[in-house]
């Protein structure tokens, strides 16, 4: 090993050891639970738990809702946070104040916000009162098919600020000469946006995508506080299923679900890395 590599390797090995000890090994060992009927009798059942899970209506419901939620909320979050970042980036006055305002939701604990959201989405909440002014009948938003809408709103409120900060940072790293050069060549605003801004934001966008993907799993916390273990079908996500399996001692189903989800996530993230690598390789600074 080259001398210059030693320090990074030593530094990394501590982290890798910790990660392996606390995550990787327990995760690998937990696979045994997926192959037995339950952790008490430990009777070997092969891949029955995995097969059963793929026929379990509530696992499939959680999987479907998680996928739909991600498909709606991740692009929405990226578009909105980029738009806000672009607007704030253009502001010459009060830009920092607006940035701070959008970052406030990040520092408010989930339990505190639950009361706020309850007041918004409850049958006697602000939305229904507002709709009532126009003679429109409201709904119990968290107990109806509109639950997903509430979940998306909560997610956007919580996470736009974070992505916005990443985009502001990305925007500030694009060299100003590119825009000047484009202006000299007679490019309009849309061309500059699509050919300079978007292109040079690809690495940032990839980071935003991964972070939004990670954060999309965390919306469960707010939903759990608001609606408990067994919410309306429209709000039931995979974490509900896994949490409830833990609570009802069904570790076999829990582990099976975790492994199936892991495979899905690995393929998704690996695919994203591949796309990002290809896109970024063409960039020149």
């Amino acid at each position, binding site marked *: 090993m080259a001398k210059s590599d030693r320090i990074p390797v030593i530094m990394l090995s501590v982290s890798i050891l910790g*990660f392996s000890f606390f*995550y*990787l090994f327990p*995760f690998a060992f937990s696979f045994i639970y997926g192959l037995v009927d*339950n*952790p*008490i*009798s430990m009777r070997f059942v092969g891949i029955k738990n995995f097969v059963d899970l793929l026929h*379990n*209506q*509530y*696992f499939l419901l959680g999987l479907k809702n998680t996928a739909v939620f991600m498909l709606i909320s991740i692009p929405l979050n990226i578009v909105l946070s980029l738009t806000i970042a672009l607007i704030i980036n253009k502001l010459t006055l009060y830009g920092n104040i607006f940035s701070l305002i959008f970052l406030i939701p990040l520092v408010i604990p989930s339990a505190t916000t639950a009361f706020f959201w309850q007041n918004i989405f*409850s*049958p*006697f909440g602000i939305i229904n009162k507002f709709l009532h002014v126009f003679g429109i009948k409201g709904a*119990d938003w968290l*107990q109806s098919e509109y639950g997903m809408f509430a979940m998306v709103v909560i997610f956007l409120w919580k996470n736009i600020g974070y992505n916005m900060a990443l985009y502001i940072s990305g925007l500030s790293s694009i060299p100003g000469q590119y825009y000047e050069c484009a202006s000299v060549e007679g490019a309009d605003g849309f061309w500059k946006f699509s050919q300079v801004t978007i292109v040079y934001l690809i690495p940032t966008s990839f980071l935003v995508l*991964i972070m939004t993907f*990670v954060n999309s*799993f*965390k919306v*469960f*916390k707010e939903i*759990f506080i608001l609606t408990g273990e*067994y919410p*309306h*079908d429209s709000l*039931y996500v*995979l*974490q509900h*299923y*896994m*949490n*409830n*399996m*833990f*609570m*009802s*001692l*069904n*570790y076999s*189903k*829990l582990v099976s679900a*975790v492994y199936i*989800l*892991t495979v899905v*996530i*690995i*393929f*998704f*993230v*690996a695919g994203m*890395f*591949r796309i990002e*690598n290809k896109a970024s390789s063409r960039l020149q600074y």
Partner: protein
Amino acid sequence: MKKCLPAIIIALALLTGCNGNTRGNNADAVRQTTVKQINGLISADSNNSKKADGQSNVKEYTKPEMEGEISISAMSEQEFMTIAANRFMAMYPRVKVNINAYRGLAKDAGERPSNEYNTENYRNFLNTKIMTGKAEDIIFTAHLPAKKYVDMGVFEDLSNFLSNSKEINADNYFMNVLEASRDEEGKLYMLPLVCSFQVISFDSRLVSENKSKLDGGLKTINFEDASVFAQQLLSGTGKKNAYLTQGDAAYYLNYILKDKRKQFVDIEQKRTNIDTDKYVEILNQVKNLADKSFFAAKNSIDFYNMEYYFAFRVQQDIQAAFNSLDSSTGDCNALPLSDADGNVYANPNYSIGINSASKNKEMAWEFVKFLLSDEIQSSPSFYGLCVNKKGFEASIVRNLKLFGGDRGNVSKEEYKNLLENWVMQVNAYDNFDPVIYDFFAEENGKFFEGKQSAKETAQILQAKVNKYLNE
């Protein structure tokens, strides 16, 4: 592989937030009470070799060497547990009994748990211990979803232990209560230490002025039949401040549903039938009774300045028996509460099971037998009627004194005979999942608060219970 590694790391990082418990397990909340350890040696009774069975495979049961440690899990420590543990350790000085009570010592039976020490947190805490193989040898089943635990194999089948303990027989015990939890396959996972059940009685002042009378041949009564009779009593009285029951509409509905719960939730078959016209009709009927002032308005009761008449009420066995025999209490026609099929349920709150993963099952069984013994069951620290007949006799004397029987209004013989007759009616064990009860209480409560319609309540409950049973 290089490209996959970040993906694996992200996937793992994500999942670490998914498979955990969202509520704290409050490991620190446990107050482990090591009662005491006395050193010495008592020889094991080697003559006691009877057949016993851990799982389904039958094996010889030999009284174990009484040496080692057994642990007991309970939501809160009861006085009788402490006494039993101390005496057991005195009897077997090389045995140590640990009582791990989640909430510590129950100082007051009516004490309400704080949010931190609620039943849900207790279940989470116990679940974690069970899954990590660190659960206690003996588990008190109160507040636990016993059926789920049985399905998961948490509890040991006690049938063979029981059949090999010849001293536990119908001469000495109320076997109908002791074996009330026996399932269709003949397996017995929980043993009640106390015969506890509910009794319905009627207001004697309203009954005396009413023309129609309750059938004298009845041995039990279900809540709906009692309610029909109680409504007749109300319609036939001109008295002011006369109400159906002392509880509110939600309380009343809870009992109506207990009556018919098998119609709505079949735990065995994991089926629900709540989102039906029948359920909606029941909700609306109870709401209708509330609207017609069959229940006293919230916070309106003023016992100090007004006289009230409650057509019927549900009480615990020992109190109800005394009240029905003491004419000054205003109760009459007391009968054990049954469900719609006539089953009288033993209350599971004083039941115990043995952890199937315990390494000391035989010694745990010896302690269970000790809890069922004349000595412990006759102890004044037991509240309620004991399953042991000598203990039952002692509790009769104790409770009669407690309720003022020494005034001479009620004789010991009539009190004992009445309670004995009632105990003999017990033929079922209430192992209905407390989690499902909580769902009903929560959603029905919202209905009475006007937050959702009867139809919505039925739909929400159907979805919730169905998910809970079939996830």
